């Protein structure tokens, strides 16, 4: 049943959020630290395990796939609800800092990527 897949997804999501909140409290930070990331890791590990045990049939899995298919539409809705006016009214400082600092971060991607290729195969210690 599709709802089983959705329920597994929800369980991972909520557990991840709880871990993120707990980390926030631990570090005295008012907010959630990496809750989504932990939720994803849980789903990767749990999903793999459940599949191996054959506890989730293909039909149930479509409950998860539906939501990953809804991801792009959600992002479209998200971009349509950004405060674009504020972004443009921040003046020159906002524009220059926002564009230039971002471009610099982009330029570092190939650099770190080659570092990963050099060390990645040996240093798989995540």
């Amino acid at each position: 049943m599709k709802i089983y897949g959705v329920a597994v997804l929800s369980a991972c999501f909520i557990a991840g959020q709880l871990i993120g909140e707990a980390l926030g409290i631990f570090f005295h930070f008012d907010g959630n630290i990496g809750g989504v990331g932990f939720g994803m890791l849980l789903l990767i590990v749990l999903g793999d395990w459940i599949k191996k045990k054959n506890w989730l049939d293909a039909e149930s899995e479509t409950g998860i796939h539906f939501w990953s298919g809804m991801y792009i539409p959600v992002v479209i809705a998200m971009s349509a609800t950004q405060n674009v006016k504020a972004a443009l009214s921040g003046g020159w400082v906002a524009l220059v800092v926002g564009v230039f600092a971002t471009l610099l971060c982009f330029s570092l991607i190939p650099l770190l990527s080659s570092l990963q290729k050099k060390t990645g195969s040996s240093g798989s210690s995540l």
Partner: protein
Amino acid sequence: MDFIPKLFAKNELIVAFLVVGLIMFISVLVSKYLLRNRIPGAAVAITLGLVLAYFGEKKGIADMPLFAGMAFLGGSMMRDFSIVSTAMGASLSEIKKTGWVGILSLFIGIAVAFFVGGSIGYFMGYKDIKSVATIGAGACTFIVGPVTGAALGASSDIIAISIAIGVIKTVVVTILTPLIAKRIGLDNPQTAMIYGGLIGTTSGVAAGLAATDPKLVPYGALTATFYTGLACMLCPSVYYLILSLFV
């Protein structure tokens, strides 16, 4: 005739599904016939979303009662839930292959945004350290800016600028990612994870990768989701102390 707006308001989420469906449909047509598939439909749709947002205020198009449901569909709960769901297709071995460079990319990405952003602010006339730090934090994400500004006691107009910087970053990342993906080698899970760590703005990374290659979304999102939390801890503390040695 006033029953029509009432009906729309009552079913706002359903209206949002319809609106996003229409945006997607138009964008796919534009991508296919006007742009000859050079820019993917999803990228056109996301950009179109940003253009529509300009017609509203704080909540973009959702400030209009007719489109209020867009704020729910595009809100953090739905965004995070659908991001987590993409993890189902991700493979743990690909993530492990990235190794410690993935974590390194987070620290470097936050440092570069903070110090470079702050320096630009300094040279553009914001000389006091609280403003410099808040502007630098804004260059991380639009959440890190106000959190850092509030922690340091920066003035409200500086905090507003830091939010603007973060939103501009999101817009730049969203539009630029699919355009330069090939040039920076963003076509494999490892680079996607490094990209997520270096860039960090979850909305921008999520939208940028969606427009580039949906298969890469879980990898980029995974590192990016740690960025804001980490930056909120580092910017007002460790990085601020380092900054105080120079300003």
